[in-house]
């Protein structure tokens, strides 16, 4: 069995104060393993984004803990959490969050620059990451010169360039058409082939199910179902070869 790269243990999260207080997560436990693509599915307001924020070490749980490669976030301050993020986690956002004033290469290079990795080597690695997502010819383009699908590829290249243990993707295909959505999922599935890396994709799009190794359903702040899909590996491998 592959290694657990990230886990949430009995995570509870209370948001707001007083009468407006909401228990967004009610004791959620979840493990992400290297070499697996996990889909986190659920309706709006089910706690997906809150769980993603906690797994991404951007929010701290009210109760319970999160461990990233065995390292608990308990007691860590904002700067320590930032260090944990930059060293272990790559993010892909629904609306890409690229920097409009930077080229594709510089957008990717930024993920290395925040880790104090700069210079020619960083530039080469950024270009290599862009080549891996099929954008070798568009490294100098700015986000506005790229289609939505291409922008999301840049975002994926930015997420993976630092070789993180975990990729967290928030609705990565929601803003894309079907073809681009498939292409993006293909790339994410390919990334998840690496046994040292786990990929979590938050979605409510059932068309992504064939790409998943594991599907976790969340509703009303609880994980209501977790399904392991052995047959998906062949699909990922097929995509990987492609």
């Amino acid at each position, binding site marked *: 069995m592959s290694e657990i790269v990230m886990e949430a243990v009995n995570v509870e999260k209370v948001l707001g104060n007083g009468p407006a207080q909401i228990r967004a997560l009610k004791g959620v436990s979840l493990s992400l393993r290297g070499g697996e693509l996990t889909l986190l599915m659920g309706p709006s307001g089910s706690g997906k*984004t809150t769980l*993603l*924020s906690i797994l*991404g070490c*951007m*929010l701290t749980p009210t109760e319970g803990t999160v461990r990233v490669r065995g390292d608990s976030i308990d007691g860590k301050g*904002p*700067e320590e959490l*930032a*260090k*944990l*993020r*930059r*060293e272990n*986690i790559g*993010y892909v*956002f*629904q*609306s890409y*969050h690229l*920097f*409009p*004033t*930077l080229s594709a290469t*510089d957008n990717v*290079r*930024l*993920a290395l*620059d*925040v*880790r104090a990795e*700069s210079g020619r080597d960083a530039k080469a690695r950024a270009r290599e990451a862009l080549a891996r997502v099929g954008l070798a010819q568009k490294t100098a383009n700015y986000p506005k010169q790229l289609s939505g699908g291409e922008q999301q590829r840049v975002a994926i290249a*930015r997420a993976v360039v630092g070789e993180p243990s975990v990729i967290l993707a*928030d609705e990565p295909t929601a803003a894309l058409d079907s073809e681009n959505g498939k292409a993006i999922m293909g790339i994410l599935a390919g990334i998840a082939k690496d046994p040292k890396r786990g990929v979590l994709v938050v979605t409510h799009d059932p068309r992504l199910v064939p790409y998943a190794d594991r599907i976790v359903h969340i509703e009303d702040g609880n994980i209501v179902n977790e399904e392991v899909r052995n047959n998906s590996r062949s699909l990922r491998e097929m995509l990987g070869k492609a």
Partner: protein
Amino acid sequence: MPLVFTLAFRNLFHDRLRLIATVIGIVFSIVLVMVQMGLYFGFGRMVTTMIDNASADLWVMPKGTKCFEDPSLLDARQRNRALSVPGVAEAIPVVIGFADWRTPSGSSTPVFVVGSDLRSGGLEPWNLVEGRLESLSTPNSVAVDKTYFDRLGIKGLGARAEIRQQAVRVAAVTDGIRSFTTTPYVFMDVDRARSYTGVPSSKATYFLIKLDNGSNLDAVRANLQSTLGADVEVLKPSEFRERSRQFWLFGTGAGAALFAGAILGIIVGTVIVAQTLYSSTKDHINEFATLRAMGSSRSYIYKVIIWQAILNAVIGFGLAALVGAAVVRATAASALPIVITPELSVGLFVLTVVMCIISAIAAIMKVTRIDPAQVFTR
């Protein structure tokens, strides 16, 4: 080029209208500070112009003399006492005072008489452009600056006028000896100055002391002070210069007014830059939140903002320096030229950078409160 610099540069140039507004604000602020400080230095230089151009190792003056223009008088007998002090080679009397210059047409204007023993070369007119210094030894001869020809109602060398109902003939003309009081200086021999100002022959305003070669300045000064008594002061030129500056700049409030203007400029500049940097940061807040989500340290984001501030400063200062150079050129021939020294330029550049960095504090406080999780909701 470091990526953090590239990001700062692009953020800044992304919104050109805002950049222009910021730069105009900085230029306005720095030019204001530059002019005020330039006036301060120009004024500081003008008020000591006579001291700077006098040939003296020490100045002997009545106790409590505040500045060169102070008309208090010394007893002329002190000169012999001064000459008796070992190491003193010369004690040149200088007489100054205000007088009325009457033109041949009958109009009059106040002038500032500066009389010195011209044979000893104590305080002679400099920058002569017409006539000769020696000709000032002839009766009624004076030297005036060509800047004041109109004020004095004369056309040039050889012109005639009256001071205290006594004839005056312009025997030499200088260029660039201007008075910050706008009252023209009129140079002449010391005896003539006494007669034009009504100072008796038993009095003088200053004695300019020249030392024998190899004399110890401090020792002679101490000896002079004890010999001449408590009613007089013996100052080095640097001390008299500083005292004159202190009097005119701070004793009269002129310096304080110039400083107040400079501080106003700094405040205006800081507020303008702070406002635009803050709004730029607010516009780019999603990008900063993304950086934070990607795990960047706060200091990385601060660097982006501070680079923006420094770029603002460099661009703003560059343009302000051009405007400043034009102002210096335009005022060079005026009664009170704006003087921008290399030290002032460096100081202003440092001030601009510091001002812009201080302005970045509000923006930095804004990004300090960024919630990285907001990237999932926008």
